[in-house]
Structures are given as structure tokens and as C-alpha cells.
């Protein structure tokens, strides 16, 4: 079934971004340069901007201007402990701007400060573009997955990023929830099924417990450990080796950041290898002052080293079961996703916890989140295929954090508790705590901590109350929370009109800022497009020169006109060498000139010198106007060329029709 507009699902990950679309009853993963996922990297260079695989592949030569892990910075404050800790590992520079982190990069010789929202918007718009090319149609919107521990501020920042990239957000859902949807939809279960999804991320561990029956997936509870993940195992190994080196050679590795980073990379690779092998080696040449580091590590040793970390994975699992008031024996399926789910010890640990239960594994653990998102995108956009059972599928999601108000002495009083099904509306009646209070301040917070100062402020407003002794006025406060993270608070004294506020995070980008970033994003795109055009114009000229050269080399060298063309080709080659970064128009002008010259000698057997000299002169004269490429293919240049050489030259593509032009552009973006 062909549609003119599709909704896509995007798994926006810290390291990789994966895009899926629901087509004819199944999900297809949209390829990015031949791979199923796109590295979440954006690079800035002298000539332009690179996104995805191209950005990641050049990280070694351009570390300062290659941005990754923007998801770790988004929606956070510069002073957050997480930001400060992450900054130490980033090769790019993170600065502070209005309390928020911005990334400083060199772009075409200028220093630019980019917000994490802008970086993610570039990744999103690239995902959108990939999908548009793959589907050959427009994209009407996307369902984007976020880590389940993301708070309102971070979720809002993702929405802002999507706004900048002009990609409408149909829904934001948690990654594990998306994976769970994919699981239950593709298996088409009958009867009640309780599914537990364990997401072993790089830095965090998230667990979601959901129950599925009659097409409805109801999320029961979620729990996370924000400091437990693959990187923690790496750290354990790194610390171990640092101590070992210190003991053996009396050298302190911690002062040398480069050495430390190389050790970390090697440890990470070794960790991954230990998932499939029993034993592996770490070898780093001249790690520190000509000191070569080698060590053999076994899987048993690694498991021993991280044993306590592995054990602590069970805490969130127990917490979700407790929150959902469920017994572990009532869980039918245990699903593991995320990179660290490949570690055999973690699998056996979970399996052992369920008394040797077989874990459910996916065919594509890296794609499943995008698949789930694509399914939700299809549902939200009303895509309805007869072969699917989507129209009866419904997700009842939960609020990831408690919402509440500040009461006396900075205490947090939750009104909507976490793990409540959304949409939800809940009211409480509170009263004043001073005599003759005339106004009442309602400040809303999000979070689980008992004191509001540790939670996230969402907004505040005050209402009028009639003076009375304390405890007498009755003020009704109502919280509303819908499926799209919109939150409202209304408050009023009983019997008076209400004050209402739409809650949004204090530090959100303003509409003006978003508008400015949108414009800038278009400029980036235009520059990228121009650069792509320039490169393809240059390539077209270069390949044309070579093909002309090959053709003339096989013809009679004594013919004056042929000699002239050969000379012109040589001149152009030298010019190309010297002008690596000329404008697209300059290349195009020379291409047209060369074509004219070549065409003139094919059409006339007896040449009049004058016309050709003119043409040669035109080719070499300085350029002003921008010329559109001619749309007809080149005629075979020398009539005297022997057929063998001609056949050889055939594969070189010198046709330059409009369609071809577009194709070259698409290929090179």
C-alpha cells in the first residue's frame, strides 16, 4: 500500500540512532549508508558538516569538532554532576551559556556555540532525510523513543530538537516500552502475558514491567538505576589496570588522559570480546613512556571483578515487581535489550533469579526499539493495513515521575504518583499554614525526593485566598497530565474562579530561540547542499577531463585540433590540482567549455582555428556567471578513435542530465 506521507519511528540513542517504518504489516528498518543504524555523531569541518557514519569515521582526525553523546547533555544544567563528569571524557569543548551546556565547535573557520538540542535536531533531520529518500515520499511525523529515566526537562528538550528539525512528534515513548510493544505485537499472544523488559544501557539500567491482554499493553511499573551500565564495568577494569601498573612500574597513569583513554577503549573492546570468548588479551603499545602494556584476561576474572555490579542489577528488577504488586512467578516473559545484555553472566543472573527460566531474545536486539517506535508511529498516524492487528493495539503508558507541589518547609507532596497510567487527573485539597494569608503560592515539582529542592521545578503561580485563620480556607489543586507530556495545574479556593497554569520546564528554549535555530538549520542544510554540489561538479569536470584525455590519446596526435584539446585537458587538470576548493560555478563553466571544444572537433572534420581558439580562451577566462549544466549527453568526441579505446571509455559517466545531477547530489549527501 503506497501512501504519500509516512510516520516513522526513531530510536534516538546515545551512541546510535535507528529508524523504522511500518509498511504492509511489518516493520522495515531504514538503512543509513548501508547500515541498519546511524551513529549519533555530528562533525564540523572546514568545508561543512557531516552527520552519522561520515562524522564518526573522521573522529580520529577531527576529535575537537566531532560531537557525540549529545543525549547525555540534553535538558540538563551545566552545573549537574552528570554533565561535569561527562565533560571530562569529551574531546570537544563544553561551555556554559545561561546555565545550560553548549558545545563549541569550529565550523568553516568560525567558532560556533551549539546547544545539544541543535545537535540532536541535525541527527533527527538526517534520519528524516534518510527516510524520505528510502520511502520516496514525505514524512508526516515521528514517534521518538527516549531513555525511561528522562525527566520532563529532557523530554521537552527532545521535543524542541524535533521542532528545530521540523519533524512533528507524534509521541515520545520509553525505549523499553517500545521494545515490549514490538515483542507482543510480533508474537500475537493470546491470554494475559506479563512481560518484563530489562534494558542494559551504556550508563543506566532500566526495567519496565507490563501486562498484555486483549491487545492492550498496560505498563505496570518502571524502575531505573542511573549509575549502572556498561561503562561502569569499563571503569572497574580501568581502575584495576591502573593500580596494577602502579604496583609494577610505579607509574601513575591517572595523570595522563590520553593513556587513560586508550586503556579505556581497549578495556571496552576486551569486555565485548569476553561475551563470546572465554579469554582475551589487551595489548597497548607504548601506553606510557615507551611502556607496552599487555594483559590476558579471562571471562571468569571479569565476572569476579564486576560481581557486585552484576548483583545490583537485581534491585531495580525487585523494585518493579514490588511496585506492580506482582510475584516474580507471574512474569511470563523476560526480555533483555541493550549492549550489555550480551554479557553471559548477566543473562544467567536474570535467568537464575527466575529459577532457570529461559530469557526471551530478539532476532535484532539493536533494532527492536526502533521497530516498536515504528509500530506506534503507524498507530498514531492512523495507518491501517488489513494484514495487521494494529487497530486493536493500545498502549497504556505511565508517568515516569511523581508530580507534586511544595508544602510547608519545602516538602514535596506528590499528587500524581509515578507509575500512574496517563492520561490522568487528580485533585487534592490543601489549606493555608498562616493566619490571614491572602495569597497562596502553588509551585509544582517533579521527582521522587522528599524535599523539593532536590526535585525539578516545573512552574509556579499564586492565587488569591480570602483571609481566614490558618487551616480554614480550602484550596483545591488539580493536576492534569496527558499522553504528550503536557501538564496543567489548576488551583482555586473552593467556590472561586480558578487559576490555571500550563506547566513547562523553566529552562526550555524560547519560541524565538527555536525559530532562530530553525533558520540556522536551514542555512546549514543549504551550505551542505552547496558543498555537495561543488564536490559533484568537481568530480564531473575531473572525470570528463580524464575521459577526453583517454579519447585523444588513442587518436592521431598530429591532428592540430586534437592536440589542442589534449593541451586544454592538461591545463584543466593542473588547474583542478591547484584549485581544490573552487566554486561549483567555476567547475561547471570549465566543464561546459571543455565540452564545447570537444564537441566542435567531432562535428567538423576540417576545423577553422578561430572558433576553437575562442572556445579555449573562454574556458580559461575568469568566471563570473553561474551556468546551468547542459542537459544533453556528450557526443562521442574523436571520430578517428579506434573502437577498442572507445569501449574502454564508455563506463566513465559524462552524461550530465538533470536527473543525473540530482542523483549525484543525493549520493554524496
Amino acid at each position: 500500500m503506497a501512501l504519500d506521507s509516512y510516520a516513522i519511528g526513531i530510536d534516538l540513542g546515545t551512541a546510535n540512532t535507528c529508524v523504522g517504518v511500518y509498511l504492509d504489516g511489518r516493520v522495515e528498518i531504514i538503512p543509513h549508508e548501508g547500515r541498519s543504524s546511524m551513529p549519533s555523531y555530528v562533525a564540523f569541518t572546514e568545508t561543512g558538516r557531516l552527520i552519522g557514519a561520515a562524522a564518526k569515521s573522521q573522529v580520529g582526525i577531527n576529535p575537537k569538532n566531532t560531537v557525540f553523546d549529545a543525549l547525555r547533555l540534553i535538558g540538563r544544567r551545566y552545573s549537574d554532576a552528570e554533565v561535569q563528569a561527562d565533560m571530562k571524557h569529551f574531546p570537544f569543548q563544553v561551555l556554559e551559556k545561561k546555565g545550560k551546556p553548549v558545545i563549541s565547535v569550529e565550523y568553516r573557520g568560525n567558532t560556533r556555540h551549539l546547544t545539544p538540542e541543535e545537535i540532536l535536531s541535525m541527527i533527527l533531520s538526517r534520519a528524516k532525510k534518510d527516510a524520505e529518500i528510502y520511502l520516496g515520499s514525505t514524512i508526516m511525523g515521528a514517534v521518538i523513543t527516549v531513555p525511561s529515566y528522562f525527566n520532563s526537562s529532557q523530554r521537552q528538550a527532545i521535543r524542541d530538537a524535533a521542532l528545530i528539525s521540523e519533524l512533528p512528534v507524534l509521541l515520545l515513548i520509553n525505549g523499553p516500552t517500545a521494545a515490549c510493544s514490538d515483542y507482543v505485537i510480533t508474537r500475537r499472544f493470546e491470554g494475559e502475558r506479563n512481560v518484563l523488559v530489562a534494558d542494559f544501557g551504556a550508563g543506566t539500567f532500566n526495567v519496565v514491567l507490563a501486562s498484555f491482554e486483549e491487545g492492550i499493553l498496560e505498563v505496570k511499573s518502571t524502575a531505573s538505576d542511573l549509575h549502572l551500565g556498561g561503562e561502569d564495568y569499563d571503569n572497574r577494569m580501568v581502575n584495576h589496570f591502573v593500580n596494577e601498573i602502579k604496583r609494577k612500574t610505579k607509574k601513575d597513569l591517572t595523570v595522563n588522559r590520553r593513556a587513560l583513554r586508550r586503556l579505556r577503549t581497549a578495556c571496552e573492546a576486551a569486555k565485548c570480546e569476553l561475551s563470546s570468548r572465554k579469554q582475551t588479551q589487551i595489548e597497548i603499545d607504548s601506553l606510557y613512556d615507551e611502556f607496552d602494556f599487555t594483559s590476558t584476561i579471562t571471562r571468569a576474572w571479569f565476572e569476579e571483578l564486576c560481581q557486585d555490579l552484576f548483583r545490583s542489577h537485581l534491585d531495580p528488577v525487585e523494585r518493579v515487581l514490588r511496585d506492580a504488586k506482582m510475584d516474580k512467578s507471574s512474569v511470563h516473559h523476560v526480555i533483555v535489550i541493550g549492549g550489555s545484555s550480551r554479557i553471559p553472566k548477566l543473562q544467567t543472573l536474570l535467568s537464575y533469579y527466575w529459577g532457570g527460566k529461559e530469557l526471551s531474545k530478539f532476532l535484532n536486539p539493536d533494532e527492536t526499539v526502533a521497530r516498536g517506535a515504528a509500530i506506534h508511529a503507524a498507530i498514531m498516524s492512523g495507518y491501517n493495513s488489513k494484514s495487521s492487528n494494529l487497530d486493536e493495539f493500545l498502549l497504556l503508558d505511565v508517568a515516569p515521575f511523581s508530580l507534586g507541589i511544595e508544602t510547608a518547609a519545602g516538602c514535596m507532596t506528590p499528587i500524581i504518583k509515578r507509575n500512574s497510567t496517563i492520561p490522568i487527573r487528580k485533585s487534592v485539597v490543601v489549606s493555608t499554614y498562616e493566619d490571614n494569608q491572602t495569597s497562596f503560592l502553588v509551585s509544582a515539582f517533579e521527582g521522587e525526593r522528599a524535599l523539593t529542592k532536590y526535585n525539578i521545578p516545573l512552574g509556579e503561580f499564586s492565587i488569591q485566598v480570602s483571609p481566614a485563620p490558618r487551616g480554614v480556607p480550602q484550596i483545591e489543586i488539580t493536576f492534569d497530565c496527558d499522553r504528550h507530556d503536557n501538564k496543567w495545574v489548576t488551583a482555586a479556593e473552593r467556590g472561586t474562579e480558578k487559576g490555571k497554569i500550563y506547566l513547562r520546564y523553566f529552562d526550555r528554549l524560547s519560541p524565538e530561540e527555536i525559530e532562530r535555530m530553525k533558520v540556522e538549520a536551514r542555512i546549514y542544510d543549504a551550505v551542505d547542499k552547496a558543498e555537495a554540489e561543488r564536490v559533484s561538479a568537481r568530480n564531473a569536470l575531473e572525470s570528463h577531463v580524464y575521459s577526453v584525455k583517454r579519447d585523444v590519446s588513442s587518436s592521431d596526435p598530429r591532428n592540430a585540433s586534437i592536440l589542442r584539446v589534449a593541451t586544454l585537458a592538461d591545463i584543466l587538470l593542473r588547474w583542478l590540482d591547484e584549485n581544490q576548493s573552487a566554486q561549483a560555478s567555476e567547475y561547471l563553466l570549465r566543464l561546459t567549455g571543455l565540452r564545447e571544444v570537444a564537441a566542435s572537433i567531432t562535428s567538423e572534420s576540417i576545423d577553422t582555428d578561430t572558433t576553437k581558439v575562442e572556445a579555449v580562451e573562454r574556458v580559461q577566462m575568469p568566471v563570473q556567471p553561474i551556468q546551468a549544466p547542459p542537459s544533453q549527453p556528450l557526443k562521442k568526441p574523436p571520430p578517428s578513435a579506434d573502437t577498442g579505446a572507445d569501449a574502454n571509455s564508455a563506463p566513465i559517466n559524462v552524461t550530465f542530465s538533470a536527473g543525473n545531477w540530482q542523483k549525484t547530489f543525493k549520493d554524496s549527501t
Partner: protein
Amino acid sequence: KHRRRIQIVVISLYLAFTIFEADWNLRRDGDFYQALGVDHDADDKALKSKFRRLAAQYHPDKISSAEARENAEAYFVHLKLASDTLLSPVKRFAYDRFGPDILGWRQCSSFQDYVLRGFQLLAPYYIGG
């Protein structure tokens, strides 16, 4: 003798009327059982199933027009509240005895809490009356 009979008839008529009125009021407001369309003795399985069927129909995700969605949202919230209340044995026990007021009672988690709270609220009403 006739006076006495008339008095009995009037009083019993009045009683019948109040009972009818109370019942009618209850019906008009609707209770959680009605919201879910189940009998008062429905078990958890029937409740869940009914809730799921209604949710699949009225969840805001299933409604395409924007104005209808707002109503759907309010309706869904009501449905969810009804099913949550009835699916929790403690809350259902309290709801059956003390009505929808129990939703506002905070710091009640066990049968005793609710019974105690219910009597505290009802006792002055009856004794005073």
C-alpha cells in the same frame, strides 16, 4: 384508630419516597460499576476485560479529532479511576460501603483504616440525627 393508620401510611409513603429518591440520585450520578458496565458482584477478570474493551474504544490515542480527544481524555481518566478502585480489594470494600467519598480519604491503606474513618465520619451524623 384511623388516624393511626393514616399516620402509618403517610410515614411509609415518605420512607418509600426517600428510598426511591436516594436510589434515583445514585442512579443519576452513576457509580463505578455502571461506568464499567458490570454487575456489583463482578469478579476481577470481568472488570479487567470490560475496562480493556472500553479503553480500546475511548483512549485518547484512538480518537482522531482534537475536540473529541479532550472529552475522551476525561472519560478515560474516569474509567481508569473506576477500574483501579474496583480492582483493589480494600478500596472496593470501602467503596461498596462508604461510596465515592473514600477517594478523598488520605492515609488509608487497610480495611481497618477505612472502616475506622467511615465510622468517624458517619457516627456524628447518625447520633446527631
